[in-house]
């Protein structure tokens, strides 16, 4: 194969935009959760489980985690693009990261909706 500099993958905008929006989701979730917890006089295990008994809170938590995983995917891919040069190693790392994030997503659903 000839060694040419290849660019022009024609993506980038969508990921860049998703990274911004997912950051916003994470900020709103983190600030509201931490704020709510700080306002509790008597913070106990019951309060903690009580928060997550609420369906809306479970959904918001899953949204937060999905935002986190997608954000992490873009961030890690960016780091790999900067520092790992051979395309084959890069592809392997990308694949492992994606698979791990999919597993985390399934695991998150299990934690939030499990008994």
């Amino acid at each position, binding site marked *: 194969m000839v060694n040419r*500099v290849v*660019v*022009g*993958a*024609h*993506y*980038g*905008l*969508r*990921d*860049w*935009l998703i990274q911004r929006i997912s950051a916003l989701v994470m900020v709103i979730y983190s600030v509201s959760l931490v704020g709510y917890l700080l306002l509790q006089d008597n913070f106990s295990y019951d309060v903690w489980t009580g928060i997550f008994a609420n369906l809306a809170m479970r959904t918001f938590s899953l949204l937060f985690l999905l935002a986190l995983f997608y954000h992490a995917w873009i961030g890690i891919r*960016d780091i790999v*693009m*900067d*520092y790992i040069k051979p395309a084959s190693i890069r592809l392997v790392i990308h694949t492992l990261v994606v698979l791990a994030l999919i597993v985390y997503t399934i695991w998150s659903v299990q934690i939030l909706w499990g008994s």
Partner: protein
Amino acid sequence: MRFSIYRYNPDTDSAPYMRDYELTLPPGDMMLLDAILLLKQQDDSLSLRKSCREGVCGSDAMNINGRNGLACITPLSSLKQPIVLRPLPGLPVIRDLIVDMTQFFKQYHSIKPYLINNNPPPETERLQSPAEREHLNGLYECILCGCCTTACPSFWWNPDKFVGPAGLLQAYRFIADTRDEATAERLDDLEDPYRLFRCHTIMNCVDVCPKELNPTEAIGKIKDLMIKRVV
């Protein structure tokens, strides 16, 4: 006044080294370039590029006390001693303070830095209203000295793929020009994870630009247009 200057002559030196210089200055302030030229009288093997000596040609860009800038418009009085001079980072060194700008200009040429307009030219010039011309302010003033691009870590890691702040500022200069008709092609060309989106908005470019231009803002405006195009 004390100086420590990066020296490297590939014909005689096996590795680059820093050499110390002492200079007794005439009274009054002067620009760094004047001082380097006095040093060159002491040691004529010291090599650098310079031309206009007034911040217009952009030849004498170098790393001054860890910060990229033009020697000809940097007053000596603004610098802490010893003044450490190195070539621009991230580009191959040809000799001493002279770097090989080939990669920098390759990226600049890749954005097609000229008006693209396939309409037959009118009898006179293609005119712009003062308001249309206003959009080019803060863009056309770039002298391509390379201070911003060589201060950008994204360019250090991917100089062959990332256009760099100087090139992207010029890309926006032609997107912003009402006489140019290739906006869609220009946006297509930059809609790429490497060419534009290696920029992570750390703003080193804005920090060092000797002409006080704002490549980060121009990059943001390109992204705004891309968003406008898809939503």
